[in-house]
């Protein structure tokens, strides 16, 4: 196989761009979360560093980098060091398959605004999100701490359970688009977004990804009221930072995917495609913060029952109904 140097350059440029944008976005999402939460709770939030506190993420970064990096006695050295990376890497890799804009014409080339247009892209996303479990599980286990271990066991059970309903909620999308390729899925929504056909699948997906991100009301693995900080109790400094950033990267990625699967991807009225896509992603991020500001945490058994006894059967039923509908429609 012969590679065109221009293709390689474009690919590298796209990777660099995506990296830069999502890392900045993740940092500012932390800031935005604090601001919005403050707003919901009728207080000011961070406002000392820079104008309106805009330099707060930078200050946080410096703080995390200069903190002492320690490891508990009896901790499993390699796994303890590796786990934060295992949590963050799958989240970053998911961006490879998300199409974030309409194809561009550039130097006589058609440039897909997507790092890799894989023909099993949707499955790659499911695979990567199933790998994200390992960061949580190994981090908590390797810490050699009771709270961390309990948190990671909870995390394992929760992520495993909700991954099922998440995967099942995506099956109707594949059935409608007749492809696993994300660009095909976006193209299939040119006329009508899938949320119109599949509101139930969208709701299931939304709830499941909230659980996958371990966000309130599903933040049992790190429930600070009961487990100190759950699986990352023993982490400090930049390793904790990686877990933290990983969570926000995950929010952005899953927001992007929700937009791609159900809200027409980069399709949208008036605005240019890339902007449309960004608006949808940011709206998702806001939704998550809003939920965090308003909902209480579930009890653990409620969480498992909800996943297994309500979401999964509903998702299966939805697949069945969609299949019948597609068959009858011909």
């Amino acid at each position, binding site marked *: *196989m012969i590679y065109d140097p221009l293709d390689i350059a474009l690919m590298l440029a796209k990777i660099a761009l995506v990296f830069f944008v999502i890392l900045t976005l993740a940092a500012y999402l932390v800031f935005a979360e604090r601001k919005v939460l403050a707003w919901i709770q009728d207080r000011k939030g961070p406002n000392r560093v820079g104008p309106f506190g805009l330099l707060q993420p930078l200050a946080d970064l410096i703080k995390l980098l200069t903190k002492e990096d320690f490891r508990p006695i009896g901790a*499993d050295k390699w*796994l303890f060091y590796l786990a934060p990376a295992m949590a963050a890497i799958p989240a970053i890799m998911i961006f490879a398959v998300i199409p974030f804009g309409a194809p561009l014409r550039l130097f006589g080339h058609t440039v897909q605004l997507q790092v890799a247009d*894989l*023909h*099993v892209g949707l*499955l*790659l996303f*499911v*695979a990567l999100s*199933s*790998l994200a*479990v*390992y960061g949580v*599980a*190994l981090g908590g*286990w390797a810490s050699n701490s009771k709270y961390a*271990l309990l948190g*990671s*066991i909870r995390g*394992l*059970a929760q*992520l*495993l359970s909700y*991954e099922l309903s998440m*995967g099942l909620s995506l099956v109707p999308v594949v059935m409608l688009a007749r492809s*696993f390729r994300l660009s095909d899925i976006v193209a299939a929504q040119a006329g009508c977004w899938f949320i119109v056909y599949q509101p139930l699948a969208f709701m299931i997906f939304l709830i499941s990804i909230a659980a996958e991100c371990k966000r309130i009301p599903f933040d049992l693995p790190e429930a600070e009221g009961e487990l100190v900080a759950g699986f990352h109790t023993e982490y400090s400094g930049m390793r904790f930072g990686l877990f933290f950033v990983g969570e926000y990267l995950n929010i952005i990625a899953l927001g992007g995917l929700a937009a791609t699967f159900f809200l027409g991807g980069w399709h949208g009225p008036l605005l240019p495609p890339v902007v449309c896509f960004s608006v949808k992603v940011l709206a998702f991020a806001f939704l998550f913060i809003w939920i965090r500001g308003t909902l209480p945490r579930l009890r653990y058994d409620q969480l498992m029952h909800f996943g297994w006894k309500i979401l999964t059967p509903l998702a299966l039923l939805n697949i069945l109904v969609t299949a019948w509908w597609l068959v009858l429609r011909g």
Partner: protein
Amino acid sequence: MEAYLFYLLAAVTVIGTVLAITEKHPVHAIVYLVSSFFSLAAIFFLLAAPLIAMFEVIIYAGAVMVLFMFVIMMLDVGRSGDGLRPGLRQWLPAMLLAGVILALLGMMLAHGGWPAPGAGAAATLRDFSLTLFRQHGVAIEIISLQLLFAVVGALYFGKRRGP
């Protein structure tokens, strides 16, 4: 290029598996095994089976191994010393037997009698789904019923009954 990638991945798979079965702690063994399965999935991808590759990661690395890890953590296996660890007495005969299997397989492979050269084109995703649903319909039914009964069995044994 792809051929080199194959050999690289094959080496990673074998080394990962060897480390997994010689590792004394089950959690480490699982981490090694997951990396081995991951590179095996990449090999499947190279062999034009992207769907199998993805399901290898989703099901094996993402679900089966996680289930193992869940049980290991919940039962706290392996923390209490290595009383379960096999000694050299178990290793030697087992290695002998595995070596014999390997040698026999190698001999048979070297002996030839090769299948006729097959088609050049690989089966596509479309071929896969058509074969699955048109020719092996009953297999899907059997396997789905088996999965259902895996749930039934797991619930039956997992249920907490009165003291």
